[in-house]
Structure formats: structure tokens, C-alpha cells
């Protein structure tokens, strides 16, 4: 199983004024740890405006910003909790807003190689226990433990 969760990609208390600010702050985790190229964050911001990634899940709203593989060096998933919800547009319905409490930002280099990662993230989204664990987690260590348990 390919690794997706790294301790250095976990963050809490992200104090963002809007969705772009949230993406830029959380994207720094990828950038400073070498997971992505310096074009990644701008590319994610641009893509989010055209193809939003907000999701209303069972009991929690989140966003999963990502972009094209050319901006990525190494696959990984950031798991970040915001200190207060930030408005994202819903993935499937233009104009519908979600108040995202967490960001699962994705760095994918090859969807076929990383289909396991992609499916484990999807599995967590659909798992009520997983989302409750993330909702309850306060410290980065608690978020990391939940991320390892449910995504790995």
C-alpha cells in the first residue's frame, strides 16, 4: 500500500479568511516538504475557481482541492483543520456553498498508481466514524492518528 499520510502534512488551527487563503496556507505543507512544484498552489487556486471541490459529507463539510499531475513531485494527502469554517463552492452544484471545516488537499502524480490512495480517501469521506474522528480531533497528533487509521 502506497503511503499517503505523512506527519508533516497534518495541520490544525488554520485561520483562513477565504477559500483561496485556506488553499494557500495548507498548500505550503506540500511545498515546503517538497511534494509539489512551486506552480502547484497557484494551479490549485485557479482550478478551484473553475471546478470547485467542496463536499457536504455525513456530518461535516470539507473541501478536497487538487490540480493536474504536472504540478506534483510526490503523492500525498494533507489533512488540515480550519479554526473556523470557510466557504467553498460545492463540487457538483455550481452556486451551492458549503462551509468547509477541513481540507483534504491531494497531490497525485499518477491516478492509476495511486488509485489505492484515492479510494482510501473516498472511503474515509463516506465513513461516518472516520469523519467523526476527524471532527473530534483537536491536536495535530490526534488528526494524524485518525488519518493513519482511516486513510494510511
Amino acid at each position: 500500500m502506497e503511503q499517503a499520510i505523512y506527519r508533516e502534512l497534518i495541520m490544525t488551527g488554520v485561520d483562513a479568511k477565504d477559500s483561496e487563503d485556506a488553499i494557500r496556507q495548507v498548500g505550503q505543507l506540500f511545498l515546503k516538504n517538497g511534494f509539489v512544484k512551486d506552480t502547484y498552489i497557484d494551479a490549485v487556486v485557479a482550478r478551484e475557481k473553475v471546478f470547485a471541490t467542496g463536499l457536504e459529507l455525513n456530518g461535516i463539510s470539507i473541501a478536497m482541492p487538487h490540480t493536474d499531475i504536472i504540478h506534483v513531485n510526490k503523492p500525498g494527502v494533507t489533512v488540515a483543520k480550519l479554526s473556523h469554517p470557510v466557504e467553498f463552492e460545492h463540487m457538483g452544484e455550481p452556486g451551492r456553498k458549503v462551509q468547509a471545516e477541513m481540507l483534504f488537499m491531494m497531490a497525485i502524480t499518477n491516478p492509476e498508481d495511486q488509485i489505492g490512495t484515492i479510494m482510501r480517501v473516498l472511503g474515509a469521506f463516506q465513513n461516518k466514524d472516520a469523519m467523526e474522528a476527524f471532527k473530534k480531533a483537536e491536536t495535530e497528533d490526534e488528526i494524524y492518528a485518525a488519518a493513519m487509521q482511516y486513510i494510511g
Partner: protein
Amino acid sequence: MKTCTVVTVCGSGVVTSSMIALKIKEQLRERGWDATMLEASPVSLNSVITGKDVDVIVCASPVTEDVGIPKVKGMGMVTGMGEEKVMDAICEVLEEKYK
């Protein structure tokens, strides 16, 4: 088993379309369909479907363009809420075409 071709569409044609493609393939198999899955973004959709006999397009991002192939909203496959509805809608299209 009956065969069909399904295209999943998301913004980048990478992450979300792969997510739902695998689930749809598995669930179609349970319903008696051996599906060939293709993935596209709204931008690449036309080139992905050209020359292929695509039966249904499942959208995780809105596709406004009419490419002459039935479209089904696929968000339920991402959130896990309303998966049955999405699968029913896909099967309805397939059964209508191959009846």
C-alpha cells in the same frame, strides 16, 4: 455479462473521476454489466469519447455541453449519500439503450 462503456467526468479528469470510476465499475458488475471505464475532464471529454461507443457519462463536475450521450449526476458516488440513485440512473440509461 452485458458490456457497456461509461465515462466519468471531473474537473481535472484525474482524482474524482478515478474515485467514482472504480465504484461504478464494481457496482455495475453486481448488476450484471461489465463496464469499460474512461475518465475525462469537461475539456477533454470530446476527445475521450471520439471513436468510442460511450453509453453514459457520469458527471462529478457539471458538464453543460451536450455531446449527444446521456448524462447522469454522479456526486452521490463521492459523498456516499445517494449512491443507489446514481447507479439506478446509470442502469436505466443502459437498459433503455440495450433493451
